[in-house]
């Protein structure tokens, strides 16, 4: 039976990726997925060697053919994404309309209503997705085209590929390093996941964003645990998080200290357990036991 653990945080920079990499190193063999597709960093601490790379097609977006546009402005009136604007053109033609590709969401309405048939829907590059080998298992990751739409489709694709790989190779554990926030890519990461670990930090932002993703997990009825990273940064705030977690019936499985070993590991491109033992790696090991993640190789 495959178990997929998803690691999310709401707030960025709380230590999701360091925790995921360390759990992978601690557990021995797992399959790994990085669903933070617009800022994928797990590969940077797992000594990933890319095995395959494939293109991922993006949503088609509207483009105006300047030679056909009569500048009636109908497209601009109907666009709900504020993506169509007049642009100065050659003096003899006056103004024509132009579409801002960064704002266009590809609905295609402008194309349908253009009386001059001047609009086409063009393919866009969505990004690429990759499989890489790491000393701790196969990694499925991606690179969304910078500035592109993070629709959740790329996330769903990665998770599907990772599951298939895990099942085909009889690997019982899938670790997924999720994206920050609480929007599409997070929801796409949580869909169908078995267990969720929220990594937070004892700050007001850490707490309020953890609360948002907790609500999201409960909404999708996912079983969820909490780890507090940089626990000793502020005792009062850590205490508040303890109380909040108790009130929300959220078990705390990890209290990880503020430890320079973490940025050091990132700079060296390795998981924290690959460095000499540190308070952080010891706390992480206890957490791996507590969650049952490393029951098989609990040394």
């Amino acid at each position, binding site marked *: 039976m495959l178990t997929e653990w998803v690691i999310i945080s709401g707030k960025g920079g709380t230590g999701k990726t360091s925790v995921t990499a360390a759990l992978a190193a601690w557990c021995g063999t797992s399959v790994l997925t990085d669903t933070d597709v617009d800022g994928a960093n797990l590969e940077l601490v797992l000594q990933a060697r890319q095995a395959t790379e494939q293109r991922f097609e993006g949503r088609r977006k509207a483009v105006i053919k300047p030679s056909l546009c009569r500048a009636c402005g109908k497209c601009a009136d109907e666009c709900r994404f504020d993506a169509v604007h007049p642009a100065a053109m050659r003096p003899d033609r006056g103004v024509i309309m132009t579409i801002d590709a960064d704002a266009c969401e590809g609905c295609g*309405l402008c194309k349908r209503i253009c009386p001059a048939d001047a609009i086409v829907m063009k393919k866009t590059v969505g990004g690429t997705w990759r499989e890489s080998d790491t000393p701790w298992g196969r990694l499925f990751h991606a690179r969304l085209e910078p500035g592109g739409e993070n629709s959740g489709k790329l996330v769903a694709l990665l998770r599907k590929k990772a599951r298939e790989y895990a099942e085909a190779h009889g690997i019982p554990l899938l670790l997924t390093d999720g994206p920050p926030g609480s929007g599409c890519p997070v929801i796409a990461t949580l869909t169908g996941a078995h267990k969720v670990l929220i990594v937070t930090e004892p*700050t007001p932002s850490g707490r309020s964003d953890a609360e948002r993703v907790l609500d999201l997990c409960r909404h999708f009825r996912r079983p969820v645990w909490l780890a507090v990273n940089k626990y000793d940064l502020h005792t009062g705030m850590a205490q508040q998080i303890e109380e909040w977690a108790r009130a929300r019936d959220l078990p705390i499985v990890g209290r990880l200290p503020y430890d320079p070993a973490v940025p050091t590991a990132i700079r060296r491109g390795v998981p924290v357990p690959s460095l000499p033992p540190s308070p952080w790696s010891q706390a992480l090991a206890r957490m791996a036991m507590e969650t049952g993640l490393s029951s098989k190789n609990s040394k």
Partner: protein
Amino acid sequence: MNSTNDTTSGETGGFGRPAPWIAVASGKGGTGKTSVAVSLARAALRAGRRVQLVDADVEGPNAHHFLGLGEPETFPVEAMLPRIDPARCTLCGECASFCNYQALAVLGDRVMVFPDMCHGCEGCRVLCPVQAIENGSQEIGRIMHWRGDGFEAWQGRLHVGQVLSPTLIRELHRRARESAPGYDLTIVDSPPGTSCPMMAAVRGANRLVLVTEPTPFGLHDLELAMAAVRRMKLPVEVIVNRSIGDDAAIDDLCRARAVPVIARFPEDRAVAAAYAEGRPMIEGGAEWAKQYDDLRRHLEVQC
């Protein structure tokens, strides 16, 4: 609109140059965007400027933790959602075949609407041959608004489970833009990442500050963020946060992209602990206050 050659693209308005509208963003989360944005707003207020702060990180809005504000006014934000009139609908399927988001489907004797998929383009309503679709709506989030003396703060807050972050950010910007002429400076705290919510938050700015940290994560995501905004043709500048004295990799990237590094803030556990109490960087002591005043001066000069 058969305009003659006196047409401008509109960005200068009628009164010369637009008021500074600075977006603070980063590829990686947790680099210190919010602390920078709030500190910069404080520095400008201390210098007697009128400042507007827009928290556009709608999936995790946090600037208010550092502002000590009272109760805000709140406004619901709705996105359009098609409502089908079954008495008129002929089940022709035109709406479902048009919808690029798979938000509509003809199932048996009715048209199903999937609210989580809908982007609110209204194309189905416009194109329905029998006018069987009207605009319904769903509340996707809220906008909070605080007004003080020479200071205004806005915040977008996406409802948990909703996905239309860019729609909420557009509405937030629309409101803030209306009040912008009354301010010397507007600062936008953007969501992390390099995809649609970040792009929507940065859009409309006339200057962009990217906050990064000198780790391989910070470097990697800074490079992505620079690539994401390249089409916007915005002046981009970089702040290196949590510097431990060796920022060579960031400096090399910035030099190669001709992007200036305008400030460096040191790694400082005391500042991190102050942040945990809701105090932004500018409260880190006299040295920090001075650095922020320098940064404020720098950003006031039109680039």
